[in-house]
């Protein structure tokens, strides 16, 4: 059944990327990337490993700076922000890492509290607990609150990683390979969680993946990255309804693997 996604506003781009270049030494990773992400939509950036997908979202979050080109996030050019402005912008961006990146010396409760108590002032202990329990409940892992990250499965870690970003109520979500290393059932659960986050919080998201199932389930639009440039951008059907050899071989490999 097609879900109601009336909250997607295609007149308002929350991320606007133009002519983006990024190199590491002699390695030219991004070579003239253009992309718009509209309010409330999920855009999947699809491509093989090493094509610069993760570099793209690291630039959007300000972890890396572009060599050339414009990256505008929520109306701010990322390379023109000072440290304070960048920190303020980051509060509106949630980043879910490939390996979850949970703080392994802290319990799940402490992981979730960590950004909250530093950015939302004057919260009482009860309010902090309520926020933590609520966000943990939204990813279906209330029972793990006092566990250490090392005690959780890969799928649970991914969910907690997403919960940690949701606690600050971001406007933009960046998912780096959300289904990498997970079994098919857990992958589907994570894909559903990404859609739930979109429906519940109306976030605009970029999902980096090489998993076509993930792309098909979560993506309102797909942008296929190849050799540092977007080869095709559109809905899943639009992107793969082509005889272009590189796109076909990616599709065939994924579904015959």
């Amino acid at each position, binding site marked *: 059944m097609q879900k109601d996604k009336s909250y997607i506003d295609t007149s308002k781009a929350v991320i606007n990327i133009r002519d983006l270049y990024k190199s590491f030494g*002699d390695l030219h990773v991004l070579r003239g990337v253009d992309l718009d992400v509209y309010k409330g939509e999920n855009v999947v950036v699809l491509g093989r490993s090493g094509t610069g997908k993760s570099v793209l979202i690291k630039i959007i979050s300000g*972890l890396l700076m572009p060599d050339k080109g414009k990256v505008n996030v929520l109306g701010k050019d990322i390379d023109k922000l000072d440290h304070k402005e960048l920190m303020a912008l*980051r509060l509106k*961006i949630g980043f879910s890492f490939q390996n979850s*990146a949970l703080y*392994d010396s802290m319990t799940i409760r402490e992981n979730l509290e*960590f950004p909250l108590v*530093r950015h939302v002032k004057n919260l009482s202990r009860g309010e902090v607990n309520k926020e933590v329990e609520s966000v943990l409940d939204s990813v279906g892992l209330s029972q793990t609150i006092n566990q250490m990250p090392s005690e959780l499965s890969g799928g649970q870690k991914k969910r907690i990683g997403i919960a*940690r970003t949701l606690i600050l109520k971001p406007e933009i979500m960046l998912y780096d390979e959300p289904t990498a290393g997970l079994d098919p059932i857990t992958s589907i659960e994570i894909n559903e969680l990404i859609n739930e986050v979109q429906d519940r919080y109306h976030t605009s998201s970029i999902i980096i993946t090489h998993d076509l199932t993930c792309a098909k389930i979560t993506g309102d639009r797909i942008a296929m990255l190849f050799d540092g440039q977007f080869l095709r951008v559109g809905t899943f059907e639009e992107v793969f309804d082509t005889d272009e050899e590189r796109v076909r071989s990616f599709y065939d490999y994924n579904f015959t693997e």
Partner: protein
Amino acid sequence: MSKPYVISKKADTFFYGIYDAILFIGRFFKEAVQPPYEFHEIVRQCYEVGYRSLPLISLTGFITGIVFTKQSRPSLVEFGAASWLPSLVAIAIVRALAPLITALISAGRVGSSIGAELGSMRVTEQIDAMEVSAVNPFKFLVVSRVLATTITIPILMLYCALVAMLGAFLNVSQNEETNFVAFWESAFDQITFLDVWASVIKAIVFGFTIGIIGCYKGYYASKGTEGVGKAANSSVVLSMFLIFIEEVIIVQIANSIRGY
């Protein structure tokens, strides 16, 4: 085309490394004085560095006190100066042994642990995760750890000196007729205020060195688990190397103040 080297690959890497380390130290002082302050994390790190080092420092200090006294006795007895033993041992422990033992043990235990912990956080993207959640990882991880080692290692040094003197007393009391008060008075007869201060300052410098080197190596670790191992290892090696250099310099300064 790859960039040409200014001198050579090795020399460039060495000088860029020194430049980076100076920037890192400069950033530490800048971040340390700017709010917000991570008091809770500083206290937690003081506990990790200080309290958890107590068993090892106690054992090493105590044994050093006993062994040093045992080894020094025959020479002093030969010159008929056995009564000088408490003073000699106290001077050696307060001026040299306690700061060095504490610093070397801490470099091994604390320096490697900081290097490995931060290195592991770097390669598993935990530091990036802090950064994207708008938390300053430098302040939370580096400033708190360096302050903890700088505050705690001088305290550990004083504790180590005390335990080593107890070890010395144990050995002296087994061989000569003396009591605790007489031993203590004799031991501290030759110790001056400058001796104690020089050692405390030495321990502060050693503590800062151990913290900043461990953090620097860990914070910039790369290349996966191999990088974590290298960060831990090079934290210990470089800290120890710098501790010996600093020891020579501070002793030189203290001696020139004493007029030696």
